[in-house]
């Protein structure tokens, strides 16, 4: 008897839960659509023009064989703020939006020059947007063009961009860490300014309209990584090339691996080295009222290719190569830092942060004018690269005969 009463109580409670809750926040996957990418650019009359990339799941998964068509559909909404456009998205789209899977937010350079804070605020507040969403700057072309580039195989633009940026950073280091998390960190930290990844489009985006991009082995248009965008506070002031960005990553200690092609002495062509490990020791001190920055860069790599007949079966050959590589990297580093000092005058490397951490009392009085001091700083670099091997061969094969 007791069991029966227990059962009835349980059933009543369950029924009450089911009926009272009413599934208010239930979202069926097949009645909603994923928002995968956002592009922000200036619109008319000072309004924002926001392009949303909405996933067409059946098209993005051609292997399922059920649906077909394009993987994503782009909708453009104009509004006074990004939040305004996002909340009015159903003005154009028939499905509920799931904003939790945004991969990429592309910002037009015209918008970025006016400052990012206004709408990053929205992104940071939202509990749906992840901390690792990519924030990228569209260089030279409207931001919405980025999302129009189609690739075959169901790979939609934001997926392509994310994967491309991520792989390029890991394999070569030509783009800085550019997640929402990195933005927040750079804004809050003392003595370092923001850099974000920059991308651009080559070719003719409009050619995609006729679907020709899918028919040809040569893409009609493609997204290309342009390096890093440099900010003063939250305003865009300029760009660094991918080579300069690599040095930036090296100094920040964020370079995972890269490939360096450097000229051989006596104009004998080039040699290239795959660098697997690189590290920079930074020392910053104040001397006579100016920062004195010393860098000790160390790296290790394998010889990839060699144009000239250097004796790489002996120690001397390696030593000569190491010296040439180290010298080349030292020049590049000093040149790059010099350009940032002269042209932008913002410390994107985090030298100020280093001073803040190691000599807080010295940094405290100059924190307001740090960027100005950085521009006048004296920089020294000592570079030591080690070449640990030459892969399967030592001397080039034609010289061995």
């Amino acid at each position, binding site marked *: 008897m*007791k*069991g029966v009463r227990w059962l009835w109580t349980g059933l009543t409670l*369950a029924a009450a*839960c*089911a009926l009272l*809750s*009413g*599934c208010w*926040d*239930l*979202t*069926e*996957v*097949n009645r*909603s*659509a*994923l928002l*995968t990418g956002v592009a922000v650019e200036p619109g008319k009359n000072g309004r924002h023009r926001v392009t949303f990339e909405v*996933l067409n*799941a*059946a098209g*993005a*998964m051609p292997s*399922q064989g*059920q*649906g077909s068509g394009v993987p994503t559909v782009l909708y453009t909404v104009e509004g006074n703020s990004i939040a305004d456009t996002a909340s009015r998205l159903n003005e154009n789209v028939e499905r509920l939006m*799931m904003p*939790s*899977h945004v*991969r990429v937010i592309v910002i037009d350079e015209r918008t970025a020059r006016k400052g990012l804070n206004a709408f990053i605020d929205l992104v940071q507040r939202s509990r*749906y947007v992840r901390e690792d969403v990519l924030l990228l700057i569209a260089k030279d072309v409207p931001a919405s063009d980025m999302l129009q580039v189609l690739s075959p195989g169901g790979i939609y633009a934001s*997926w392509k961009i994310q994967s491309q940026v991520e792989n390029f950073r890991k394999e070569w280091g030509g783009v800085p860490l550019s997640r929402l998390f990195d933005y927040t960190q750079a804004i809050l930290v003392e003595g370092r300014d923001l850099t974000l990844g920059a991308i651009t489009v080559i070719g003719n985006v409009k050619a995609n309209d006729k679907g020709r991009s899918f028919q040809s082995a040569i893409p009609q248009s493609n997204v290309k990584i342009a390096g890093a965008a440099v900010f003063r506070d939250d305003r865009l002031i300029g760009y660094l090339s991918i080579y300069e960005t690599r040095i930036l990553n090296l100094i920040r200690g964020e370079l995972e691996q890269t490939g360096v092609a450097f000229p051989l002495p006596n104009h004998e062509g080039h040699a290239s080295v795959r660098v697997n490990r690189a590290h920079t020791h930074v020392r910053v001190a104040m001397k006579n009222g100016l920062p004195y920055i010393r860098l000790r860069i160390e790296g290790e790599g394998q010889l990839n290719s060699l144009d000239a007949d250097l004796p790489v079966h002996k120690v001397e050959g390696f030593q000569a190569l190491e010296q040439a590589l180290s010298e080349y990297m030292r020049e590049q580093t000093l040149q790059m830092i010099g350009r940032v000092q002269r042209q932008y005058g913002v410390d994107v490397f985090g030298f100020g942060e280093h001073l803040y951490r190691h000599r807080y009392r010295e940094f405290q009085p100059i924190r307001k004018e740090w960027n100005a001091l950085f521009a006048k700083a004296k920089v020294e670099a000592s570079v030591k690269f080690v070449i640990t091997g030459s892969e399967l061969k030592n001397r080039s094969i034609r010289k061995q005969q």
Partner: protein
Amino acid sequence: MTFGDTDDLALVSLRFCGKEGLLCYFTTLTSASFMMNYVIQPLAQASDDLAGEDATALLKEVRERCLSGLSSELSDQLHVLPMKLGRGYAALFAEGARDCLLVDVKELVTRSVEEPTSQNVIRGPKEGFTESAATNMSLIRRRIVTDKLRFERYEIGEKTRTEVYLAYIEEEADEEVLRQVREQVRSCRMVSLFDSGSLESLFRPRGYWLFPTVYNSERPDSVCSCLLDKRIAVIVGGSPFVLIVPAIFRDFFQSPEDHYQWFLVGLFARLLRYVAFLLSLVVPSLYVAITSYHQELIPTILLTSIAAQREGIPFPAVIEILLMEAAFEILREAGTRMPRLVGQAISIAGALVLGEAAVQAGIVSNINVIVVALTVISSYVAPVYTFGSNIRIFRYGLILLASFTGLYGVILGCAVLMIHLSRMETFGVPYMSPLSRMLGGKTP
């Protein structure tokens, strides 16, 4: 006679030692050759020099000289006669005697010892218990050669008078548990008892009926290892499943085979069973919860794939899952009950129509079929069938909870189960021991 004119009652009048006698027995409980060889022939050949004495003394003489190989007794109490006859005794009346001689002539056709059907092993003994309690006891006795092994006989069932034996090892088994089991068995009032399954509820702790607390096995090696592990086995005549008490949560994930293999393989298999238990419990409810409420938890590409598959499916995820689960339950029930000959037809209908065709018709999605299949297969990993089938019930509860409260519901349901499990005790042993041992409970 109380038996009326039932056809299988044999009343054989015979003459032995110069006296008229009447032999009565049930032909259905013995065989004609047995009667002929061991009872009637020795009686007929008994020499006449016993004649002339007192009839009761004659019966005694006959019992000692002619039927000494059979278990027999002299009785003057006629009221025990119907019960004795029903047990396979033959009664011999002699002219002028007050007593009658009861001889055990039972010879029944029993199934021979075969391989167990519901608890298979690849490596290990292939003998299984049968329906005969005597055979089952013999299977145990021949494995445990100790003078401490005890069998205690009880009878349960007003009509069936089913024999029930408690098996234990004296001085090993816990006296307190033994006392409780005896008491339960003695005080049990049932009209009929045909399988040990009906007896399980006797040993269930009050108020905790969600999980089984009695282990059952049809493998003698498994029962013997439990006996040596200080437990008590309950053998029920007519049932090849021997009960073992007390049983805790851990036991339902152990197979005797674990000990016959390399220890790492056994350990791995055991861990696998726990994982499969969890899978079969929560996978469908997690699927429902995550795809309807917490899409942000799924990696984008997986979500894209799920969304693409669910494109055009007319039902919400819950209904879809419940449909498939129900279809499978019906299939399973049909598969167990149907005659073996139509088995193929059912499996074709099940696999093709319900699985493949339902997906192609766009009624359910592929991923749903995968979820249900994974769940169902996982629930059969538990070595004891009854345990796996209990989980199914909780699974439906969790799916419903997930359908209207999402992950909170799943976690809530699991928490309730967990609380229930850790409060349970069976014969003074915490059900979750040795996990809950630190709270002061004792382990078996």
